[in-house]
């Protein structure tokens, strides 16, 4: 069964984020871009399914030129081919536009499953997968942590408050994946060398009828960093420990409202 995995390139989770001069984008200088960690679970699951049942894994990204590196990462881990829709700077965070673009790419392809990360680290909207499923008219389960694929159907489960939901769905279907589903593999060095020779199909949004500038469903007005933490209050308790303890309780109750 062929699987499609939609992936995004995001700042390394260890990056220090700075806001750019225009105030509504991050400063990309010095950022290392990686495969969004949730997408790793989607890719791993697709690789496991095709290894067990045959078929190919195609990874798809909609992103700027630099996003090719994450496609190469996926190819190095074992994906068979990749599709790169080049763009996405203007539509960053616009889940609906992203879903429309992916739908335009995927509508004529042949697949049994589409797997995506539950959300992409950074924008964290958790919307693209579900929107894409609706646009492609596919059944979907979001945030799965286990999956079994049978003949024409699948069983997937997801964690909910205090329990687990188990779904059965016909194929083809779309699943959004998260931690717990599997242990993503590392790219082996031989895979990295082989990735060079695997095909990456390059597509301009206009080739698939997408006008990136039109019909934005979402606009980012401004970004700001969390406020700096203020100076802490230090209570001196050496001379009068009991008094200091009293003060602490008072502050916790009245200022911090913690007790």
């Amino acid at each position, binding site marked *: 069964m062929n699987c499609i995995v939609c992936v995004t390139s995001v700042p390394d989770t*260890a*990056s*220090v984020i700075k806001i750019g001069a225009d105030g509504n984008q991050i400063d990309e200088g*010095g*950022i*290392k871009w990686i495969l969004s960690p949730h997408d790793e679970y989607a890719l791993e699951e697709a690789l496991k399914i095709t290894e067990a049942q045959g078929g190919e894994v195609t990874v798809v990204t909609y992103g700027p030129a630099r996003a090719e*590196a994450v496609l*190469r*990462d996926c190819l*190095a881990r074992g994906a068979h081919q990749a599709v790169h829709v080049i763009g996405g700077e203007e539509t960053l965070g616009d889940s609906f536009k992203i879903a429309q673009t992916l739908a335009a790419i995927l509508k004529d392809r042949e697949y049994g499953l589409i797997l995506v990360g539950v959300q992409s680290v950074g924008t964290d909207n958790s919307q693209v997968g579900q929107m894409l499923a609706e646009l492609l008219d596919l059944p979907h389960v979001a945030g799965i942590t286990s999956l079994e694929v049978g003949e024409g159907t699948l069983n997937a489960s997801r964690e909910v408050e205090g329990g687990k939901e188990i779904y059965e769905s016909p194929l083809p279907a779309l699943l959004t994946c998260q931690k717990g589903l599997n242990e993503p593999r*590392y*790219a*082996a*060095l*031989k895979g*990295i*060398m082989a*990735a*060079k020779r695997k095909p990456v199909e390059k597509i301009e949004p206009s080739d698939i009828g997408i006008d990136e500038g039109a019909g934005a469903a979402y606009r980012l007005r401004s970004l700001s960093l969390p406020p700096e933490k203020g100076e802490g209050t230090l209570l001196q308790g050496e001379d009068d420990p009991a008094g200091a303890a009293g003060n602490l309780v008072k502050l916790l109750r009245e200022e911090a409202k913690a007790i």
Partner: protein
Amino acid sequence: MFIRRDIDLYSVDALLTDEQRMVRDTTRAWVRDRVMPSIEDWAWHERFPTELIAEMGDLDLLGAPYSDFDLPGLDSIGYGLINQELERADSGIRSFVSVQTSLVMYPILQWGSEEQKKRWILELGKGRAIGCFALTEPDFGSNPGGMRTRARRDGKDWILNGEKMWITNGGIADIAVVWARTDDGVRAFLVEKGAKGFSTVDQTGKYSLRVSVTSQLVFEDCRVPASALLPGTSGLKNALACLNQARYGIAWGALGSAMATFEAALDYAGARVQFGGKPIAAHQMVQEKLAWMFDEIIKGQLLAFRMAQLKDQKKLRHEAVSMAKRNNVRVARECARLAREIHGANGIVNEYPIMRHMMNLETVNTYEGTHDIHTLVLGAFLTGYPAFEPPGSS
């Protein structure tokens, strides 16, 4: 190639191809997930994590620069980067890979018979077999040419007698590449674990390279078949050629260690506040130490890159490898000391990686040709006067 990308002043990262970057990042990610969480514990308990060997095999970290038998065929920079990332974690982990790759797989590929290659290369590359390289003896370290271990013919077989010392992986190896004197000069033999007359004793009590097995190998009338001889070996020069491969990796690896201690020191200096409510990073003397480390690491990296280019062009002279090993290990050793000073008392505890690196580097300074021996190699290259024998000796 620091972890902190904002300090890549010489854009060293931009010298890498996408594949090289992925090789580095994959190794780095594996080290972060699988080695770093337990490294201090292994070091404390003097334990080499044999359970990771198969994982290294799965990642193709063993034998990475070779392309025979479907090995990855990494270029020299890619191979260097593996060493760098492994030694960023620990010199012992890097040593395991160096020995397996440069000192065991390399001689088998270079001078082995087809049967020997078929029997061992894939097994070693996948981590299903472990190798060691036995050259040093109790009385012959820097001067291996004086070795006493002998192999004499007995019919078609060979009989080995002698003792090898300080052998990395010795006690856990399935196969030992043993260098011995024969009537036709020094040659190498593949001696399998369990061969009659062959025993090993692990060295304990090491303060350095604690995450690595180091052993003594003893051969007492150890009979091996004719097929144990590496047929292409014909002198000590073959052993030295192996060391040259390993030193190449050490020159890159040492920078990994240097970066680890430097970046730890940079972070620590920024966080530790003394005098005037300012971090110690604000003091000129601390800055001088940081600047020295930074400067030397970048210079060492540029040396390593040029060395890699020459290696790929097959123009790398062994003296150039001696120079990079000597320089980069010295830099790493000094970085560990300066980082230790910057960490103050915290520099001596295993909550920080500094002391472990510092102790490891004492081995790295000594093995594969000591710092001073490489000084003599350079001296001989420059002046034409080899000065290995003391003045006045004949």
